[in-house]
């Protein structure tokens, strides 16, 4: 009898030790599914979520901390959030992004939202990178941006008092590498969902448009006037972009080849990604090079300012006349409609801010 009691007691002790060890080392991240807005759920395909980087509470928390941490830059002065500010729908107000040494880039910082619905997963103005995870690799080492090296970044993170624990919670390992950094940042970025503009509420029957906004929407959808919908979508596509690449008639010759530089195909020269029209109230200046400071400038461009080039998109109307020749009233109303796509809740969402 004593013999059996000894065995049972040893068995229970081992179980106890085993449980105790699990309490220290267990990797059990909490799944955190994306909150898909009702309109998105109803109207468009599901978001792209890579199977090798599932959304977790711990991964998103880590990604958010990294996004706002200047530690990722070469001299610890610049975070992702410096060029992608929440109050500006995760872009900034400058024409070109400024690197840590004061050097200026050649592109306008892109706003960040609804990134998981970029179905082709081509990122940057020129689409040169596939997947959100891979996108996050580039700014850290770009000499014109954060100008760091991944060796330096990993070293700083490993020596940090908090990060090793956060990485272990998120990914089950305290050894840190660039892949895990970018995975965490991508998880956070996928949570940046904007879906509560006035126009969204109108579509859900919770708001009404003014006469000007309604006429502006009609201008947007009218092939004889704005014809914006072919590239920017419609009330049936809450992304307000086709996420494709077009030459929208900005220049006769190109100093920046855009997509063409990446593909090497001259037919792609001067093509840049269609930006979403959400949140324009916060994202000036506009275009890939930030050349237009106001929405009036943008509308005037399509109305009278189009320039012909070999790769101009055939969807650009009346190029020989400079554009679609909108009336002053239609221009004003189109602007009113475009501003109704701005999501004021998104830019103050505490989940997306450091506070």
């Amino acid at each position, binding site marked *: 009898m004593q013999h059996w009691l000894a065995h049972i007691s040893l068995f229970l002790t081992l179980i106890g030790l085993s449980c105790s060890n699990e309490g220290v080392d267990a990797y059990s991240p909490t799944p955190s599914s994306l909150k898909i807005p009702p309109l998105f759920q109803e109207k468009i395909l599901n978001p792209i979520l890579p199977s090798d980087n599932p959304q977790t509470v711990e991964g998103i928390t880590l990604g958010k901390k990294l996004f706002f941490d200047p530690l990722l830059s070469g001299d610890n002065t610049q975070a992702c959030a410096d060029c992608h500010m929440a109050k500006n729908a995760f872009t900034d107000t400058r024409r070109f992004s400024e690197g840590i040494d004061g050097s200026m880039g050649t592109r306008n910082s892109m706003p960040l939202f609804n990134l998981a619905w970029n179905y082709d997963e081509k990122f940057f103005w020129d689409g040169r990178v596939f997947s959100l995870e891979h996108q996050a690799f580039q700014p850290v080492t770009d000499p014109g941006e954060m100008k760091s090296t991944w060796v330096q970044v990993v070293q700083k993170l490993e020596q940090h008092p908090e990060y090793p624990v956060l990485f272990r919670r998120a990914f089950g390992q305290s050894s840190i590498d660039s892949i895990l950094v970018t995975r965490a940042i991508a998880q956070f970025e996928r949570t940046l969902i904007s879906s509560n503009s006035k126009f969204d509420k109108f579509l859900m029957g919770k708001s009404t448009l003014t006469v000007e906004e309604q006429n502006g929407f009609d201008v947007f959808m009218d092939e004889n006037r704005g014809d914006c919908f072919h590239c920017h979508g419609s009330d049936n596509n809450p992304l307000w972009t086709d996420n494709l690449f077009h030459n929208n008639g900005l220049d006769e010759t190109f100093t920046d080849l855009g997509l063409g530089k990446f593909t090497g195909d001259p*037919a792609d020269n001067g093509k840049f990604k269609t930006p979403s029209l959400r949140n324009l109230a916060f994202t000036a200046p506009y275009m890939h090079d930030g050349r237009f400071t106001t929405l009036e400038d943008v509308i005037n461009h399509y109305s009278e300012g189009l320039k012909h080039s070999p790769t101009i998109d055939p969807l650009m109307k009346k190029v020989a006349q400079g554009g679609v020749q909108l009336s002053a009233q239609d221009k004003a109303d189109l602007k009113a409609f475009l501003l109704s796509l701005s999501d004021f809740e998104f830019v103050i969402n505490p989940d997306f801010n450091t506070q």
Partner: protein
Amino acid sequence: MNRKVCILLVLLSLLSCHTDSDDKISNVTISFHFSHLWDGTPVTNEDFNDIKFTIENGERLSIERLRYLISDLTFTNPNGDVWVIDAYNLVDVTNAENLTFSPESSIPGGVYSNVSFTFGLKNEKNMDGVYPDLNSTSWNVPQILGGGYHYMQFDGKFLTNTNVEQGYNYHAIRAVDNSGDQITYPQDTFIIVNLGPVTLINNAMFQIEMNIAEWFKNPNTWDLSSLNQMLMPNPTAQIMMYENGQNVFSLKSVESSP
């Protein structure tokens, strides 16, 4: 006793198999592959972005974007029985995507007096905003033009009579007249493309050809100098597209597929 039961079961099972093979008509799967020609010359996306094609009216043009929707593969047997594969496919020549459409549904093998598909969507299926995949690729038609979806987006540039490049947007939709207070539909403009009789014994791949030049040719010689852009709100242009589209598609062959 046990041995007798076993033999009986084996016999029954053999008889059962025999009966199955005699009485059941085996189903076959169907695929439609779309290839594209310009009056007999093959066209792929590698031919795009180059002003190299000449239309019946004489204008030279390039193709920069070509995608179109087909739906409702329909099989009618000599008894008048009809099988409809209720699905659609957005053929994207620009990106060489969905050139082959292989719906999941199968149909009974046998003799069919006609096979057809719909270019575009029949009106009852052309409902506004109901197909998330088509919404996601911005294939919609504005509600001020009746809503629903495009049938085709065919864009490029042509040379005007002063040798200047000018964009064209040959976009086919349901013809609509929105010039009055109420939207009206002068006539249907989806196209039923009849491919003729076929006998299907095995899984089959239908090789369909689109002669792109035909869109500009017959019965309406298309004048790009006057009909180039803003054609969606133009019901006359839409009806002309419908008329010219009657002989755009043809069946090249039906091949057995695995």
